[in-house]
């Protein structure tokens, strides 16, 4: 059942973004920024977390989930450590995503070459 939810919710978010990509001239980079910021804002309004609890990976895997995690990290850090938490919480919560992408990409550059498109 939760697999079905993950599939439908994740797919739906992607379907909506596809419309955005096709109808507007937005480049992929801008779309990714919009997704993350939207997730952070929805997280701040307390909407995204219950949504993610229900939809599981369908809400967690998309970049909106990443944005919501960013806000949650800041919120938790502020609760625990006060003012400095505003600066600490973002990178702390996103640390796994960012460092894994950075480290594994760099290691990948040792083994792989850019491929000509055909």
């Amino acid at each position, binding site marked *: 059942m939760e697999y079905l939810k993950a599939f439908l919710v*994740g797919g739906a978010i992607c379907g909506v*973004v596809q419309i955005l990509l096709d109808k507007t001239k937005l480049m992929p980079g801008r779309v990714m920024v919009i997704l993350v910021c939207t997730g952070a804002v929805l997280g701040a309004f307390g909407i995204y977390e219950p949504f993610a609890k229900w939809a599981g990976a369908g809400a967690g*895997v998309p970049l909106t989930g990443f944005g919501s995690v960013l806000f949650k990290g800041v919120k938790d850090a502020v609760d625990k450590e006060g003012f400095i938490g505003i600066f600490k919480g973002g990178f702390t919560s996103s640390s796994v995503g960012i460092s894994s992408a950075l480290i594994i990409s760099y290691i990948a550059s040792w083994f792989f070459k850019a491929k000509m498109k055909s």
Partner: protein
Amino acid sequence: MSNEKKGSVSGVVREPDKKKRNENYNQYVKQVTPTFSIWKNCLKAFIIGGIICTIGQFFINYYMYIGADAEMAKSYNTLTLVFLSILLTGLGIYQKLAKFGGAGTLVPITGFANSVAAPAVEYKKEGQVFGIGCKIFTIAGPVILYGIFTSWLLGIIYYILKQYAVV
């Protein structure tokens, strides 16, 4: 001149005012440029995006099964998806998936990982420091900057509201 249909060719050719001509031209181009079927694209994005999220759910369940708590399992899932998407990028498979799935590969965190791996592999030729080092975040940089900034901004608002015991 003003009764020419907006977006028609004559509105482009016969319009003496450059600004209006350009507006007409943009409209005209929009009309005559064919696009791929938007519904087909949405369906493909839906399917690919759904599959990637389902795979994510599978990993989360698996990690919880072998003993992790919910938060730890999500972190391991992120790590796993990032690793797989970079591996597929290196093998040249992710790009083919992206051509088919569009937003289905852009939206999940796998899109973010691919956007870091692609410049890392491409700019190798320009050196470790000035090639990879400088350009690895060419595509993903904005995501990190605006993600951190937005959460910081919201964090300030949260902090202030907390001071006044609103939250």
